[in-house]
């Protein structure tokens, strides 16, 4: 479901479904359109339309009456009529300024992988500046370091793996410090790469005894790989070896034959293919289409001491995510984030990741426009799923209040409010059901879901 559709569209369907109204759901619409719903042309225009639609709604509180009016005179005439007696321009400016940020010079940490695309590109493409912030994006050596630096307040906010803020808030692998996620960075965009010598071992059932690398223990990579292996009947704790390895070292280790494969961010996968040491076995999208991967996280303390800075930062990230979600911008983004100051990787590699036309390492060229996608909405059901997996693999012992933790860490309500203010249409609920490898997950029944797995760590 794309969150970036036009709010000032008289034909917009008011019932749940997709924006153009011709499909039963947003997913179907996206499949038909190929690239998602048509977003607005420019951000300024979008703000203008937010204000305009607010005025419009105030004048015609009833949807049906407003619609009749719009239908009869047309949207542009209505807008012109409105602006005659309401200073739309001034109102838009006032709106765009929002509250002045308490702190303008901010530091945001990132790990050089394509998951961080919105955080990184917001600097060279000016999204932070547009929201009145002077943000320095700082490259960081690893997940543990980014966690410590954010906890130590060297960074005001940071790029983290989606499960990390949950783990930090629960005090797993660190002191418990309340963290929050206002936006998901990317969805999909990971992959399982195997060494070229395993090109005939495509069935995971044959993977007993292999060594795999994952970026971090509290990562979607870990949970997805374990899930995938367990579905094939392998116990990830006893039948294979899983090692936490920093992403750049994965390619070198694969070349040196220290590992047989890895589940890693796409630019690392593509780099292994680019250097001719491995092939793409599976995109993470094929395990769970639309899974979250990385998040944009900040401590509760920062949010309460500098709420306006935090709101501006979130707006910039949501804006950047909206921009990154459009296929036509992807080439430009690849060029913007490739230099040594940002990801530091060959442009060809990043382009293959972001445009979705890529070499698979076995001599074929594949295309999947949704190989990586960007959608900021922090679904609380994502957090609940991660908690079930943390429990499944023994990272959490004892009982856990899924809903409370998810709602404390994943700020769906705040993000919803911000997105509405920005003229985007957030989903109405913060929980959605989804399927992982064909198995439906019901966020209301996490314990049942957990109990349904045969392979899990004995607790």
């Amino acid at each position, binding site marked *: 479901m794309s969150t970036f559709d036009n709010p000032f569209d008289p034909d917009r369907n008011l019932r749940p479904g997709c924006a153009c109204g011709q499909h039963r759901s947003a997913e179907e619409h996206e499949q038909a359109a190929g690239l998602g719903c048509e977003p607005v042309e420019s951000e300024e225009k979008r703000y203008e339309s937010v204000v305009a639609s607010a005025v419009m709604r105030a004048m015609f509180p009833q949807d049906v009456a407003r619609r009749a009016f719009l239908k009869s005179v047309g949207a542009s005439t209505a807008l012109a009529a409105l602006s005659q007696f309401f200073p739309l321009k001034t109102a838009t400016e006032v709106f765009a300024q929002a509250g002045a940020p308490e702190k303008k010079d901010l530091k945001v940490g990132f790990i*050089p992988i394509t998951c961080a695309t919105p955080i990184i590109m917001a600097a060279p493409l000016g999204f932070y500046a547009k929201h009145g912030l002077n943000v320095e994006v700082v490259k960081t*050596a690893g997940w543990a370091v980014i966690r410590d630096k954010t906890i130590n307040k060297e960074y005001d906010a940071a790029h983290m793996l989606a499960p990390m803020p949950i783990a930090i808030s629960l005090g797993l692998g660190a002191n418990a410090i309340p963290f929050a996620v206002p936006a998901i960075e990317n969805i999909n965009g990971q992959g399982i790469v195997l060494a070229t010598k395993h090109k005939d071992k495509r069935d995971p059932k044959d993977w007993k005894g292999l060594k795999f690398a994952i970026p971090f223990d509290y990562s979607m990579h870990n949970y997805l790989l374990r899930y995938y292996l367990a579905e094939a009947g392998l116990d990830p704790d006893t039948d294979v070896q899983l090692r936490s390895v920093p992403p750049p070292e994965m390619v070198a280790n694969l070349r040196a034959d220290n590992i047989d494969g890895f589940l890693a961010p796409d630019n690392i996968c593509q780099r292994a293919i680019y250097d001719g040491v491995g092939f793409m076995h599976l995109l993470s999208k094929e395990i769970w289409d639309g899974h979250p991967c990385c998040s944009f996280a900040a401590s509760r303390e920062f949010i309460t001491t500098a709420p306006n800075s935090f709101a501006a930062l979130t707006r910039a990230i949501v804006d950047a995510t909206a921009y990154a979600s459009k296929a036509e911008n992807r080439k430009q983004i690849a060029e913007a984030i490739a230099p040594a100051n940002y990801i530091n990787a060959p442009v060809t590699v990043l382009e293959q990741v972001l445009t979705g036309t890529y070499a698979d390492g076995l001599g074929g060229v594949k295309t999947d426009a949704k190989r990586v996608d960007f959608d900021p909405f922090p679904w609380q059901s994502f957090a609940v799923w991660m908690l079930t997996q943390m429990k499944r693999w023994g990272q959490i012992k004892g009982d856990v209040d899924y809903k409370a933790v998810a709602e404390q860490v994943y700020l769906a309500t705040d993000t919803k409010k911000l997105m509405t203010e920005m003229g985007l249409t957030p989903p109405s609920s913060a929980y959605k059901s989804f399927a992982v490898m064909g198995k439906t997950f019901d966020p209301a029944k996490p314990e049942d879901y957990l109990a349904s797995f045969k392979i899990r760590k004995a607790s």
Partner: protein
Amino acid sequence: MMTTSSLRLRAGLVSIALLAAFLGIWHLATRSTAPVATMSPEYAKLMGLTATQGKSAMPGPLDVGAKLWQHLKRPFYDNGPNDKGLGIQLAYSIARVGTGYLLAVLVAIPLGFLIGMSPLLSKALDPFIQVLKPISPLAWMPLALYTIKDSSISAIFVIFICSIWPMLLNTVFGVASVRKEWVNVARTLEVGTVRRAFTVILPAAAPTILTGMRISIGIAWLVIVAAEMLVGGTGVGYFVWNEWNNLSITNVIIAILLIGIVGMLLDQILARFTRMVTFPE
């Protein structure tokens, strides 16, 4: 005189021959020889040179030389917080090493002096120093980050804590092993304790102390690369890590070369100081 200069000449010639042989073997070993699989041009466009032309994953000396020239041409560029010229990175590293090392000198030498003058203390503290001395900088790092809560100060702290021990031990040893006769003569002449420390013990212990300082600067320079790889941001260690991220072995080799040269220069400076204070007995 004649023999030493000809020995030096011959040693120089051997050094150059060794270097040439090394570069030659390196060049031959990294020529592209790997077989190339046939692939469609569309596919080849998406692949790197290693895969398409069988280029060795290891760069040859010519690649490294060309890249080094590029770096030397503009050592001080600044493309934002995560990409600065090698000159700037080296300056950051040297500044960090300098700060941590000077702090260590300020602590180690007076402390070593006091310990060395008291046989009781030097025996009592010895086990602690021996335990703390062999700890790797990377082992200190998480502790420092956690307690100091600032990565750049942590890096300096790690240099401080790693370079302090050789200096401390050498100062203690140097002070403790000043010849008893000299101290006794000073005592007979009724030289005060402070004056005795500065005019008799310090000059006598200076060569040993400076040897300790020389060992320490080497350790500090070893530590900085590891520390910067971990905390990131700036410095030559960060440069190595950043280029490693991009699997750019060429740049890593260049960094290795520069780290070696700077380390040698630091060592030579201390060696010169040591020669200045050495005295014939």
